[in-house]
């Protein structure tokens, strides 16, 4: 990862948290001093390095643990509402922001709501479980499925 790519990555995350939506290349360029035209190529290299995830059109889909698009994993944290890519990432949003959070999702089996308050990094109700279907070597084979 080049210093410019790292700067684009840092600016993209920072702007996402500030704006609550994926930044444009122009916004990243303004923050980094890197040419706007160079930002999409940097995003592509970051995607290839698993530092973020693009959609099929080259737009930002995931800034893990954050999801740029709506998902069934909703997280209230730091006075805002965020979307996570999966249960793991849902806990990751509070961890990344270093704040308490509340996770709203549903049981994948029965579709009943599962609401989890996370205080000091720990769920206050330890009753739920988490299932990972594919082994670690395959997590990035299809990150959307994972």
């Amino acid at each position: 990862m080049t210093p410019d790519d790292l700067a684009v990555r840092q600016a993209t995350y920072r702007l996402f948290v500030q704006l609550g939506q994926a930044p444009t290349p122009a916004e990243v360029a303004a923050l980094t001093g890197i040419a706007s035209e160079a930002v999409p190529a940097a995003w592509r290299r970051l995607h290839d390095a698993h530092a973020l995830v693009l959609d099929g059109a080259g737009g930002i889909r995931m800034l893990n643990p954050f999801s740029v698009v709506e998902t069934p994993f909703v997280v209230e944290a730091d006075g805002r509402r965020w979307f996570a890519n999966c249960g793991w990432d849902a806990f990751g949003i509070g961890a990344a922001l270093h704040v308490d959070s509340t996770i709203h999702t549903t049981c994948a089996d029965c579709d009943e709501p599962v609401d989890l308050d996370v205080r000091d990094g720990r769920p206050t109700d330890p009753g739920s479980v988490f299932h990972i279907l594919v082994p670690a070597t395959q997590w990035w084979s299809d990150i959307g499925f994972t």
Partner: protein
Amino acid sequence: MLVFRSEAHVQRWLGDRSPGTTIPITKLAELANAWWSDRLSPDWQPHIREQNQAILDRLGLTGEFWRLG
């Protein structure tokens, strides 16, 4: 990577699917804290595989299923 109300719900959902692995939600929270807490740091650097593997190992998430490569 899915959340279930209990292990019984996992088993019912799996049906004929090949199972992966189930961990308590408390272990997931520990994993998320270790994995993501530096993500917004101004000093963030990409994790190399060995760093990530060390996180899993430290949390007792060991065995072939948890090998990153």
